[in-house]
């Protein structure tokens, strides 16, 4: 049953019609049944009253005849009972009533044509039911004052029932014939009421998959406005996501095409030239282009990966000190090449609630940027500390920094500062990746001017519920605050 419900999509209209009609039918049926019963009882009573009434009329008549001796004459004249025939029918139910006049001494004196020859009842007065020849009779009996004779007025049960049924049945038929009309009316009302739903359905069905214009809420009932509102909000979100995706693809192709053109041109120069020195230079440049593109592709893939990361990432307590040291030792050779000193300042034993791999990518991108933009022989500073229930981690460089108006833009994809665009090799994706990872952690990143002169990136990450003591004891140092300085040897020359 449950399976069937799942397979067949539930139609609101069908459901509404079905439940309305079923309940209508039930209530209707019960009402019809009760009123049929009531009508039957009332009609039976009416018939009984009629029997009594008829008996009294006959009684008055017979009494009168007896007083005039007419009747005595009658049955003296002929001992066989007189048939009281009614050749012309005044009413269709007229013959349904039979009567007998029985003398106590002489038996049946007078009867109607429809009455049997046997006594209709043994009761002398009042209402009774008698079985005669397999026929049930309803009889009202009335005896004369002196008790000489009895009048029975009776009605055959089958005839009475036929009448009762036909009268009460009329009512039910009335009920039943109204039902389809009512059903039609209900169907019309339901259809009309649900037409906005249909209208919405058609609006949605006629759409192309990529068409994300908001739905019109014209003529929609109040109850449906929130639904349409939500759908439109979703459309807007999707539209934005699609636009983002389109821009990403377009930006990516743009950013890859220029280095590709450079690579191709350098290779062609190398092929064409006769000068070995020019060829050597061109090949070197081609190699540079390949390295740059490799970096770009890697960053693009990382960005694509973090961008398509489902909102729920696996988080665990991550020791900040541990991660920072791992990233610094990873980037050490890059800093060494530029003779840049990396200064680390932080508290021990701070654990954040984060994904360890993503945090490493985040820190590497920030540090990579800091090293890239700092001039040779300068300083880069990484510091972190506990602040309320967060860990504040900052990466500062001695580079040219960012113009005041540009802080908002530096996390945009492929955005590269004018001043450094030519001098620093970068993909323009590092901070976009960083920002995405920050968003995945529901953390915060902000940029400001560093005291070292360059850019300061400040991360605010949530602390893990309980810092893992065992893990922190593995990290360098036991002091609460310590500094780690990496003095690089100046390049000889």
């Amino acid at each position, binding site marked *: 049953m449950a399976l069937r419900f799942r397979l067949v999509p539930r139609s609101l209209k069908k459901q509404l019609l079905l439940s309305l009609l079923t309940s209508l039918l039930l209530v209707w049926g019960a009402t019809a049944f009760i009123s049929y019963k009531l009508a039957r009882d009332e009609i039976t009573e009416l018939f009984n009253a009629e029997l009594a009434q008829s008996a009294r009329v006959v009684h008055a008549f017979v009494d009168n005849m007896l007083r005039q001796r007419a009747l005595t004459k009658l049955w003296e004249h002929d001992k066989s009972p007189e048939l009281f025939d009614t050749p012309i029918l005044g009413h269709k139910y007229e013959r349904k009533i039979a009567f007998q006049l029985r003398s106590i001494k002489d038996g049946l004196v007078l009867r109607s044509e429809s009455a049997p020859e046997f006594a209709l009842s043994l009761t002398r007065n009042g209402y009774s039911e008698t079985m005669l020849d397999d026929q049930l009779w309803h009889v009202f009996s009335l005896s004369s004052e002196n008790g000489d004779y009895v009048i029975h007025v009776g009605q055959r049960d089958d005839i009475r029932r036929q009448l009762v049924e036909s009268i009460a049945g009329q009512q039910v038929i009335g009920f039943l014939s109204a039902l389809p009309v009512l059903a039609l009316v209900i169907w019309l009302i339901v259809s009309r009421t649900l037409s906005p739903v249909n209208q919405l359905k058609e609006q949605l069905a006629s759409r192309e998959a990529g068409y994300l214009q908001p739905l019109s809420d014209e003529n929609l009932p109040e109850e449906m406005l929130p639904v349409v509102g939500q759908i439109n909000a979703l459309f807007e979100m999707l539209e934005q996501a699609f636009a983002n995706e389109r821009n990403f693809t377009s930006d990516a192709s743009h950013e890859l095409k220029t280095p590709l053109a450079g690579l191709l041109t350098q290779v062609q120069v190398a092929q064409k030239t006769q000068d070995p020195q020019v060829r050597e230079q061109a090949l070197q440049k081609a190699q*540079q282009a390949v390295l740059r593109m490799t970096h770009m592709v890697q960053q693009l893939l990382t960005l694509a990966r973090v961008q398509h990361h489902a909102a729920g990432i696996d988080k665990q307590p991550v020791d900040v000190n541990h991660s920072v040291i791992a990233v610094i030792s990873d980037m050490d050779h890059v800093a060494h090449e530029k003779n840049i000193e990396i200064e680390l300042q932080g508290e021990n034993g701070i654990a954040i609630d984060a994904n360890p791999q993503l945090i490493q990518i985040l820190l590497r991108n920030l540090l990579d940027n800091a090293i890239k933009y700092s001039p040779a022989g300068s300083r880069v500073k990484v510091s972190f500390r506990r602040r309320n229930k967060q860990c504040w981690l900052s990466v500062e460089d001695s580079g040219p920094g960012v113009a005041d108006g540009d802080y908002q833009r530096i996390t945009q994809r492929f955005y590269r500062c004018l001043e450094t665009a030519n001098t620093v090799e970068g993909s323009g994706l590092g901070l976009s990746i960083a920002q995405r990872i920050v968003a995945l952690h529901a953390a915060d990143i902000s940029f400001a001017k560093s005291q070292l002169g360059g850019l300061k990136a400040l991360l605010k990450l949530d602390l893990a519920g309980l810092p893992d003591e065992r893990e922190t004891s593995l990290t360098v140092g036991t002091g609460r605050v310590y500094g780690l300085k990496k003095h690089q040897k100046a390049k000889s020359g």
Partner: protein
Amino acid sequence: MRLLLVEDDTILGDGLKAGLAMEGYAVDWLTDGAQADEALKLNKYDLIVLDLNLPRMDGMSVLKAMRKRKDSTPVLLLTARDGVSERVAGLDSGADDYVAKPFDLAEICARLRALARRHDGRNMPILEHKGVSLDPAAHQVSYQGKPVELSQKEFEILNFLMSHIGQVTSRPRLEETLYAWGSEVESNAVEVHIHHLRKKLDTNLIRTIRGVGYIIDEN
């Protein structure tokens, strides 16, 4: 021919400069739009290769500014975007042609030759005059049906004069077409090249107009 290359990507710019220099162009390479705008105000170029995505002043603005100054130097745009809108906007802003990145060096060179040709009002790819035939694409010159060996500079001078038949060209103008910024110009270099050309071809082909310059006469 003197050519201005504006491209901010160092590797591509370097490759293009080397590749175009091999074709005999005197290439000035700039990496930002504002510099290019200044350079165009001060110098006369025969051709311009212009990237659209430039720092400080984008390629489109550089292009519009030079067309506003009635500078009709042929411009070849470099675009990296997929959409046609940028190309349409570029052409409508006065560019003569465009190539999409990544491109083939040979294609750039062919398009530049076509631009130069159209700018000089010619359709025929080969210049012919008084028995001298010059093929800019193949870098070949023949005189009365026989191939003639010319040095790069000699070829450039002959190419320029044959593209401007009947017009006097000053010595500084010829020097401009021969030397990019930073290359050393010997004081009598042009005279030496003209002398060689006269020896290798018809002595009367190039006429000197004292104090003014050089001319190849129409008849």
